[in-house]
């Protein structure tokens, strides 16, 4: 039996898809209970209710953010298999989990192939897939990698990738940094009649770094947010939890299959 968790704000735009999800939940191999929530507190209440009903398969219906809200709610994560029905276009997570459309996502639930997927922990919040963090130009971050390397400079965007399953990469976190290098900004020929600082704002940030780490700390003077769970903080501790979570996904890996 499945527990489907569906945020109420999805209702208006996704009627056809939601109808299919409701039909799937009502009968057959995908039958289960539908919990429609409108706040994080309500989600926590419904998760507790589903747990008390001995349901072991939780399915997030909605966006990547809704999926991450769900996987960060239960206490007994190790006992639960998580599924995902993406309803938003261009879902990064759907690409990671190889859920290309609704039909494909429902088929994955029917097959119920379980994979243990290592998760990235951002201040103990679980994340599947990549994360981006933006910084204001006057609030550049300072990075500490594996307690052995510190990096500072004009970084405005960081992209964190969980590389723990990739043989080509030797450490668990792949980090790319983007920004406007101050030294080259001032010496670049002026193409527009704008001050150099304003020209920098109009140019897309360039790739300034690529490094690997097993553990990472990011700090800044002012609070900043990540792109997934959107927690606001002045310091983020990042690592990979190899115990991970159990995912229902068609993505096949002999290494990962439970």
């Amino acid at each position: 039996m499945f527990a489907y968790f569906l945020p109420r704000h999805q209702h208006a735009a996704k009627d056809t898809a939601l109808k299919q999800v409701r039909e799937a939940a009502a009968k057959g191999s995908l039958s289960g209970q539908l919990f429609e929530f409108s706040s994080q507190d309500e989600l926590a209440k419904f998760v507790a209710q589903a747990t008390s009903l001995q349901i072991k398969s939780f399915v997030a219906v909605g966006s990547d953010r809704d999926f991450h809200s769900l996987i960060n709610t239960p206490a007994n994560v190790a006992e639960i298999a998580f599924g995902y029905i993406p309803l938003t276009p261009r879902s990064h997570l759907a690409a990671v989990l190889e859920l290309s459309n609704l039909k494909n996502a429902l088929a994955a639930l029917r097959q119920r192939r379980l994979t243990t997927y290592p998760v990235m922990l951002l201040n103990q919040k679980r994340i599947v897939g990549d994360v981006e963090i933006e910084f204001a130009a006057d609030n550049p971050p300072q990075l500490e990698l594996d307690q052995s390397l510190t990096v500072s400079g004009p970084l405005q965007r960081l992209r964190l990738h969980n590389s723990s399953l990739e043989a080509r990469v030797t450490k668990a976190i792949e980090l790319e940094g983007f920004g406007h290098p101050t030294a080259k900004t001032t010496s670049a020929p002026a193409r527009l009649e704008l001050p150099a600082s304003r020209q920098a704002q109009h140019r897309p940030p360039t790739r300034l770094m690529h490094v690997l780490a097993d553990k990472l700390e990011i700090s800044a003077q002012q609070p900043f947010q990540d792109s997934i769970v959107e927690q606001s903080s002045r310091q983020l501790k990042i690592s990979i939890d190899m115990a991970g979570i159990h995912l229902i996904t068609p993505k096949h890996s002999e290494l990962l299959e439970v």
Partner: protein
Amino acid sequence: MIPFLARLKKQHTISQLAAEYYLGPGLHVRGTIQTDNDIYLDCNFAGKLITEGLIEIDVNARAKAEVSARTLLLHGELKGPAQVRERAVLAGNASYEGDLQASVLEVQPGAQLKGQVRAEANA
């Protein structure tokens, strides 16, 4: 070629894209990098660089570092002892100060070199 790669290649050299550790202009980096793969520096660096691969230090980079590598390509400034198992190249704009040990040493015209140099087969 996909547009994203084409755009990246316009902005970066192949060495920058391929390096496991790429630290670019404007960054200040302190500490130790130890890896089996290539390191490309275009920043201010202080610390230790240890690799089984290549270390390339770009023309605008300044490094005060203890270096151990298979190959060293120096275009910028490096101060500190360097042990290079195969080939060390000091390009035309390079400035090196320290004790350099390498199997093969190539110093191009214009490079500045201050310190002790030992070029021998088993560096």
